[in-house]
């Protein structure tokens, strides 16, 4: 590595260590590196320009809308209906509430496209409910968090939109479709671990509601589930772009939350808009500074150098994939998923192409990998929210998470080494 890149890494880590927000750490490292590379005036102007143009994309507009509809869904009474429906489906097994939790978090993460929203909406209800039935609290938090992370891979998914941008335009629709099989596989694996633990600890059966009541719960969940059908159906059929679908999702969830379910008042809307704008801005600011960083990295020729270096180590596809994934796992523990995708896609996608790995396969593998990092300390947005909702510490939750980490890594390996898991469904649908 040459001097500017070393300077960049050192500045970034030093900023992170003293508690500078991640987005500014990225921006400061970029600016410092630019200063030693090009003169002062163009350096600050270029950084500013890259930040502004980084957000200027119609595809990214889907992100604020999925965030907004996620918040409307969370506060609009749809979470409760989804939980009731999940109870009908899987409540009857030993450790039933754990299944219900994973399934509800998946539904919710899927509908809202936000794992953090899923953790707080589903966890806020499920964690106390599970505690009442004698589940250990940390176990419930772990189940909620990993279930919500799964929702990031099952479409619609904001992070896959970010990847589409970073990869230079892989079809969002194709990425969405590609996420189904790995996402559902991960969800099933998590339920399996949850079940084994529940059985060993003799956690109670939740009790399946009777047939009539079950049918009623299903009917009540239909409007919420229909949202997935409209959004994903519209995107897959090519009726909507992802951005248009996200706007439809906002209007649909607004209608459900305000006039139909009456859980959100019109006077609550400014606060919901403000909170959504804040969440949007946090993601956008990360995108802005990460885009600037990715630009300076490619200016320093880092992607080419690193690709050449990796390929000089070994020509074994299996080993290189393993190396890349280990790196992502480590990076994912302390970096948020959005900057990680924006910075590492331009660096590693060329290597992946060199190894005959499709952009589609690489994207799903990367996002799945980084999702694990969202639940690991020291930095993990899901981890922080989950521990906050469950009123427990990161250390205790981490211990409860260990078996779930193990199975997530196992599913990751499957997705990495069996490309057809990702690629079969998009191919079937003609992408």
């Amino acid at each position, binding site marked *: 590595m040459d001097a500017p890149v070393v300077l960049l890494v050192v500045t970034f880590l030093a*900023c*992170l*260590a*003293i*508690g*500078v*927000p*991640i*987005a*500014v*750490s990225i*921006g*400061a490292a970029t*600016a410092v590196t630019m200063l030693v590379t090009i003169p002062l*005036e163009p350096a*600050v*102007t*270029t*950084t*500013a*320009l890259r*930040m*502004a143009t980084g*957000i*200027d*994309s*119609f595809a*990214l*507009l889907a992100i*604020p*809308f999925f965030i*907004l509809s996620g918040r409307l869904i969370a506060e609009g009474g749809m979470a409760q209906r989804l939980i009731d429906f999940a109870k009908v489906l899987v409540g009857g097994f030993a450790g039933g509430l754990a299944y219900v939790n994973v399934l509800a978090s998946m539904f919710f993460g899927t509908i809202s496209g936000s794992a953090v929203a899923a953790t707080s909406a589903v966890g806020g209800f499920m964690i106390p409910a599970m505690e009442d039935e004698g589940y250990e609290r940390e176990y419930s938090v772990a189940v909620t968090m990993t279930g919500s992370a799964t929702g990031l891979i099952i479409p619609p998914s904001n992070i896959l939109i970010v990847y589409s941008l970073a990869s230079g335009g892989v079809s969002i629709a194709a990425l969405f479709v590609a996420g189904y099989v790995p996402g559902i596989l991960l969800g099933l694996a998590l339920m399996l671990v949850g079940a084994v633990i529940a059985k060993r600890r003799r956690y109670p059966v939740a009790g399946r509601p009777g047939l009539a009541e079950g049918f009623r719960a299903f009917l009540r969940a239909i409007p919420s589930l229909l949202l997935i059908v409209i959004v994903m159906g519209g995107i897959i059929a090519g009726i*909507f772009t992802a*951005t*248009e679908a996200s*706007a439809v999702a*906002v*209007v649909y969830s607004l209608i459900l939350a305000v006039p139909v379910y009456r859980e959100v008042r019109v006077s609550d809307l*400014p606060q919901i*808009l*403000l909170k*959504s*704008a*804040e*969440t*949007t*801005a*946090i*993601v*956008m*600011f*990360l*995108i*802005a500074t990460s885009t600037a960083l990715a630009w300076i990295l490619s200016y320093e020729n880092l992607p080419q150098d690193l690709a050449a270096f990796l390929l000089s180590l070994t020509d074994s596809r299996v080993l290189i994939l393993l190396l890349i994934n280990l790196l992502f796992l480590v990076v994912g523990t*302390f970096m*948020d998923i959005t900057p990680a995708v924006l910075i590492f896609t331009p660096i590693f996608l060329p290597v992946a192409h060199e190894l005959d790995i499709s952009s589609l396969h690489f994207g799903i593998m990367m996002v799945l990998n980084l999702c694990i990092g969202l639940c690991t*300390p*020291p*930095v993990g*947005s899901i981890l922080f929210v989950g521990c906050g909702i469950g009123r427990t510490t990161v250390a205790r939750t981490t211990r409860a998470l260990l078996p779930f980490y193990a199975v997530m890594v196992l599913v990751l390996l499957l997705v990495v080494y069996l490309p057809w898991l990702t690629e079969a469904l998009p191919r079937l649908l003609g992408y």
Partner: protein
Amino acid sequence: MPANGFVALLTLVVDRVERTLAWLLVLLMGVMVVDVTWQVVSRFLLRAPSSFTEELAGFLLIWVGILGAAYGFRTRAHLGIDLLVSRLRSGARRAVTILAHTVVVLFALSVMVIGGTLLVRLAFQLDQISAAMGIRVGFVYLVLPLSGVLITLFSIESIARAIAVPVER
């Protein structure tokens, strides 16, 4: 103490600014929703896709993203690592916190205020005009220095408060 009086006044001003900023964000976000919804409606129902909605939505996103980021500094919503800092003793912690805020101020001033202003000037000099709406692109970039000033203000207030609060023993 007069120093504490100054901090209290600063906090009062910053609270006002925060509230104004909040309403501006609500407005921008609301317009963005209406704008893109209108685009969907005009394309499907009226069969006459509107040409300026897409461009307007992109500009609004830049404003919500960059201006909202300033709001996020006030509400401490940005992600960061406090693992190391939280282990320090309170005196050292205060020093490191002040240092972190100073880094934010330096970044906001150099890249966003100075870099952003140069960018705005450049866009006006080149007379860049947007394709659909025909507005000057310089106005869009204006959000960078504006947000930079706000971030600087919010961070300075945080530093002032950190200094004013006595260190716990």
